[in-house]
């Protein structure tokens, strides 16, 4: 079975949490002032800060989401890796040093350095809160996803657990402990991912017909098309599968036929099995090989009880089988032995891998059934872009699909340098040179990790350890296939990954409230201790909101949600940041308008997009009023144009008028 709760995993997990909390309490004693709380007194060594960048950045979406997407659809997840890393080039070459020089504690400081405007602080503070909350949702959802199989708790317990621990960390010590937690997590993530990759290469590939539990998925056939189609239709009341005297097709609604899925019942055991129809070519005109029935897996809800593969689910005894195998290796090999960094790809390129698709249907009695079916896929197709629905635009002839892809890649490129929890890390080092050096260390660690994601994802795809229902667990389950110890450590690191990123985000939000928004709300200036107290209260409040959102958004795709955060960040923050640095005509009204328009337009676009219609509201995506789902290609330029126009209109007024 896929998830057996193990004492070792729980012990390692608890040890990680204990060390993280212990570190926080210990370091918390050093951060009493607001300079200590928000920016660690600017005294974090640049190397530590650089690795902490990796800790901040390599969130649940990177580790769990990207590896999962690669494991289930191939190369496409790597497009996220490339976009996420390329964004650091904007951060290093354009943003890093000026950010350090202009600001003090928060991103709003930097934008407001020239103007001392309450309007700028208010708008940027709100944008920081909005982006951080958007980014928090997938992290909290990821926490629930992890804790469920690891500790056997329900989703909401995982979310509450992470939320509570993070609030404790942030309230205890602020930026000092958050930085060291990130350093620890960033280092462990890179080191253990390297270990995992080395083990994948040492293991190599082997052909199988099933997963790590030893179950071999059956293949029936080849069948000739006409007799098979007649049997499926019930030829004169005879549903017997050709050549299989005990097996008969079950009558099912037409949607099953359209999805090329069938079910059979065994006349002796009454066992119900789901199959997918497959051939090497088109099913209507298959090549000489004919048509095959490949065993699928099904989850049905009958009378409020979950049935797996036709029988009631019994956790740990009768459950879904783990999946992920290679059907054919080049030159008829059955195993390759250890592989090199390049031969890993070239071997896979010439192999045939079994990917898994899924389809939600209703059976003849009206019960909801989800079928997970095999999709034998040439390795050359697995290693090319454009197979996952998120990146369907690559192979589509439709202009709006192409624009959707370009828009996503633009948002990934521009989003990194606009994320508040990344930007505040420029204030934890002493000067611009240290900010530059720590960004270089960050790029090295993050880039190296992203290279590993392709090996880990493809390793998981062929590991026989995947859970067909949950792509986010691909990396931890890959580790489980290697060793129980590695699973325990990788899961604990993944959990710490969520802890670290959530800490950074809550701190960024708390900084926005205490530092940027408080000046607008409270007439008199808060002193140092009051600011820290307000930040701690804000941390508890933001943490509580994040917990609620994490529970509400259960089941949403983690990477998809992160894409939202990147789009909003890039649209709201980047135009203001870039124009402030490189156009001296920028006015405070221009900045306020650009941040406001970028934030509102991107949020509105996302809420009206086809993806949101489908995944959040459960509506038909065709009814969406926007032509494609990713807003960046429209809303980022809109932010720039808004800033330019408003600055031109208000330039003289600002020069002559008093500062507000």
């Amino acid at each position, binding site marked *: 079975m896929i998830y057996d709760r193990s004492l070792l995993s729980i012990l390692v997990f608890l040890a990680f949490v204990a060390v993280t909390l212990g570190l926080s309490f210990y370091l918390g004693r050093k951060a009493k002032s607001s300079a200590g709380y928000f920016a660690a007194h600017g005294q974090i060594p640049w190397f530590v800060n650089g690795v902490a960048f990796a800790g901040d950045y390599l969130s649940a979406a990177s580790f769990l989401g990207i590896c999962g997407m690669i494991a289930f659809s191939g190369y496409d997840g790597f497009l996220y890796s490339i976009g996420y890393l390329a964004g*650091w*080039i904007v951060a290093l070459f354009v943003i890093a040093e000026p950010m350090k020089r202009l600001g003090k504690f928060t991103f709003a400081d930097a934008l407001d*350095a020239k103007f001392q405007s309450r309007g700028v602080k208010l708008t940027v503070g709100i944008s920081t809160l909005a982006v951080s909350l958007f980014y928090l949702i997938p992290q909290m959802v990821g926490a629930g996803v992890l804790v469920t199989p690891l500790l056997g708790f329900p989703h909401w317990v995982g979310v509450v657990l992470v939320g509570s621990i993070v609030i404790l960390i942030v309230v205890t010590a602020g930026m000092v402990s958050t930085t060291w937690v990130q350093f620890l997590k960033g280092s462990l993530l890179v080191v253990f991912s390297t270990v995992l990759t080395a083990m994948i290469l040492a293991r190599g590939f082997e052909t199988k017909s099933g997963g790590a539990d030893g179950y071999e998925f059956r293949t029936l056939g080849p069948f000739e098309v006409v007799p098979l189609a007649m049997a499926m239709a019930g030829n004169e009341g005879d549903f017997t599968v050709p050549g299989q005297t005990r097996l008969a097709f079950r009558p099912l609604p037409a949607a099953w036929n359209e999805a090329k899925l069938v079910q059979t019942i065994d006349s002796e055991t009454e066992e119900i099995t789901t199959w997918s129809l497959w051939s090497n070519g088109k099913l209507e005109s298959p090549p000489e090989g004919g048509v095959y029935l490949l065993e699928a897996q099904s989850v049905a809800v009958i009378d409020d009880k979950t049935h797996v593969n036709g029988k009631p689910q019994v956790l740990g005894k009768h459950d879904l089988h783990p999946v992920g195998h290679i059907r054919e290796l080049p030159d008829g090999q059955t195993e390759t032995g250890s592989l090199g960094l390049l031969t890993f790809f070239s071997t896979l390129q010439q192999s045939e891998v079994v990917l898994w698709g899924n389809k939600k249907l209703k059976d003849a009695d009206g019960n909801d059934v989800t079928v997970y079916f095999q999709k034998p896929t040439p390795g050359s197709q697995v290693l090319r872009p454009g197979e996952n629905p998120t990146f369907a635009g690559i192979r589509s002839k439709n202009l709006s699909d192409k624009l959707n892809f370009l828009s996503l890649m633009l948002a990934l490129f521009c989003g990194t340098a606009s994320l508040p929890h990344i930007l505040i890390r420029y204030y934890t080092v002493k000067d611009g040179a240290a900010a530059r050096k720590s960004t270089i260390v960050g790029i090295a660690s993050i880039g190296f990790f992203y290279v590993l994601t392709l090996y880990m994802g493809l390793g998981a795809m062929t590991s026989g350890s995947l859970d067909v229902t949950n792509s986010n667990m691909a990396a931890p389950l890959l580790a489980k296939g290697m060793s129980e110890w590695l699973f325990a450590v990788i899961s604990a690191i993944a959990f710490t990954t969520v802890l670290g990123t959530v800490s950074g985000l809550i701190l960024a939000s708390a900084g926005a409230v205490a530092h940027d928004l408080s000046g607008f709300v409270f007439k008199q200036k808060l002193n140092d201790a009051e600011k820290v107290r307000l930040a701690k209260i804000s941390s508890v409040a933001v943490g509580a909101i994040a917990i609620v959102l994490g529970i509400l958004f259960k089941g949403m795709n983690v990477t998809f949600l992160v894409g939202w955060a990147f789009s909003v960040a890039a649209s709201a923050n980047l135009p203001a940041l870039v124009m402030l640095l490189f156009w001296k005509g920028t006015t405070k009204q221009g900045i306020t308008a650009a941040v406001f328009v970028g934030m509102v337009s991107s949020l509105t676009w996302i809420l009206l997009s086809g993806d949101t219609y489908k995944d959040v509201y459960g509506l038909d995506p065709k009814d969406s009023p926007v032509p494609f789902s990713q807003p960046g290609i429209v809303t980022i330029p809109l932010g720039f144009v808004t800033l330019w126009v408003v600055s031109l209109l208000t330039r003289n007024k600002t020069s002559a008028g008093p500062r507000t």
Partner: protein
Amino acid sequence: MLTRNARIGLMLFAFYLLVYVGYVLINALDPELMEWTPIAGVNLAIWYGMGLIALAFVMALIYGYVCDPHDEQTPGTKGGDQ
């Protein structure tokens, strides 16, 4: 008037942007090209993708090496009229 470091940064940024745009446009306009296996049986999608990651690191090192540590003036605020 930009500082020396900022000018170097913008030049390197422009170069990387070109290479990144090339990658994205090939994917969008001619995805079949990404399936081509130029060297060692590994396709262009992997070579180009890994190359973009490696290039980011190499350019970051170059930037770190050529930047003047004393060049600390803020670009954009210099000569501004606000």
